[in-house]
């Protein structure tokens, strides 16, 4: 009896939490389906006459949808590059002691702590000088500053969970290091790579300050394009809401694909 009551309490609490969590998002979606007249005319819980005009405007205007594609391009590029360089490094940290390893690890982490506002101008100058300004590669490279340390940190946890005997057995069996690493080792930490990719994708997707500073037209992120909704006649709330909803979608897709990795994956790692 007792446990049943507890479970239902727990269920209710979880339900309330999720309702509160989803309310602001529901409101955004609700607004994105309304005309501005309806939004400003009064509060309605569901749109009176649902309209997709706001979305249509975004999908037909290149200035809008190119921002969307740009964001996806540099985020994917960043995820691939971050995970690729972090894998060997995480292996080194999890298996070997080497000169200055602890200092190096802390230095990597400190790069997450740099206040962005003043680093913007030097970043701007640096990327302009080397010709990476306003390119997807440029933004992806800049985002490595905070994503690589995180990727190393997470992957190192997963790799430490793999017994060292596997490395040694493979060496005795005549596996060369690259063959061992790619054929045996990486499949063992698949879920760790999934979790890492999720986190690097997430932090690159949500970052705006650097992405906006390093781009003007060709690689401008969708989140920066959203300032277009403010005009002399005020804010176009419906359009703003629609753009907002669209920025949530890729994230939702990514979570859907890695959902099992999140649950299983974390359990293996030290994270």
């Amino acid at each position: 009896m007792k446990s049943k009551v507890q479970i239902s309490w727990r269920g209710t609490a979880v339900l309330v939490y999720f309702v509160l969590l989803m309310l602001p998002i529901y409101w955004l979606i609700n607004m994105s389906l309304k005309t501005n007249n309806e939004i400003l005319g009064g509060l309605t819980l569901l749109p009176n006459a649902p309209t997709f005009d706001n979305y249509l405007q975004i999908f037909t205007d290149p200035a809008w949808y190119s921002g969307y594609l740009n964001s996806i391009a540099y985020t994917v590029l960043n995820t691939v590059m971050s995970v690729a360089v972090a894998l060997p490094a995480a292996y080194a940290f999890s298996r070997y002691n080497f000169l200055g390893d602890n200092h190096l690890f802390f230095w990597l982490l400190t790069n997450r702590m740099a206040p962005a506002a003043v680093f913007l101008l030097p970043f701007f100058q640096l990327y302009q000088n080397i010709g990476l300004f306003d390119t997807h590669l440029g933004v992806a490279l800049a985002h490595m500053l905070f994503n690589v340390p995180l990727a190393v940190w997470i992957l190192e946890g997963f790799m430490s969970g793999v017994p060292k005997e596997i490395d040694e057995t493979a060496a005795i069996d005549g596996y060369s290091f690259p063959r061992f690493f790619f054929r045996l080792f990486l499949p063992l930490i698949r879920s760790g790579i999934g979790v890492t990719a999720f986190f690097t994708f997430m932090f690159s997707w949500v970052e705006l300050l650097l992405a906006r500073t390093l781009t003007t037209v060709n690689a401008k992120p969708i989140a920066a394009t959203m300032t277009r909704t403010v005009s002399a006649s005020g804010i176009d709330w419906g359009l703003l809401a629609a753009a907002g909803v669209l920025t949530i979608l890729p994230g939702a897709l990514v979570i859907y694909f890695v959902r099992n990795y999140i649950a299983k994956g974390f359990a293996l790692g030290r994270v």
Partner: protein
Amino acid sequence: MQKTVNHRAWLLVLPVVLSVAFSAILPLMTVVNYSVQDILGPGQRVWVGNEWFIDTVRNPDLHAAFWRNLLFSFQVLLIQIPLGIAVALALPAKGWQASLSLVLIALPLLIPWNVVGTIWQIFGRADIGLGGYFVNNILGLSYNYTLEPRDAWITVLVMDVWHWTPLVALLCYAGLRAIPDPFYQAARIDGARLWSIFWYIQLPKLRGVLLIAVLLRFMDSFMIYTEPFVVTGGGPGTATTFLSIYLSNIAIGQFDLGNGSAFSLIYFLLIQILCFVFYTAILRAGRK
């Protein structure tokens, strides 16, 4: 794990060092360079030594922003860490409910930060936002985040709790799943209550993930910029002018690079020291 000494491991670490150093060291050198000079225009610069640093340390507005930010970070940790643990404990452990919960809970984390700001800017408005309307017209409290400093603070805090508690919850959820079943079976045989299971089994096992959660939440809340900038712009007055917002007002708004650079170096150092303190404190607490 027993590690072997192998200095050639540097070769494996090299790509990481190069890729991070590229974006870290050159800009940092530039900032150091700015912080000791007064830049009047292209080619016109005067060496000022430590003047900017002295200015910065004595600036009362900055002190106010610092304490405001510290209070904010403190409140953020105080709410989000316990709430995150509670949510993780309450979430279903298996089946489709678990998958669905994870997808839903991770959703706020994948929204660009300025969109988070936009969501709450809309949600909190008394005329067109559900939240603002509810508080004003149904609870009957007067609430306006653009005019009332207290309301602006609460809005930013609630927004941060909404946005980031899921991260703490996800990390703790993963930590909980890593506890092997025999631990619970042993506890059941001993007749342990839920509270003692939590206190003696679950919480100690969560130490590692909580360390990460506290560090990440502290760092990010101490550097919070985009969300309050979109919602309140640092106002009304200076009610939500956190350190980053104050910094960008100086560096970008007034284009005062010397002051801004000195400020950001001190800021950077401060965050590192505070994080280091947290780090060692939590590690020590776990060892005793």
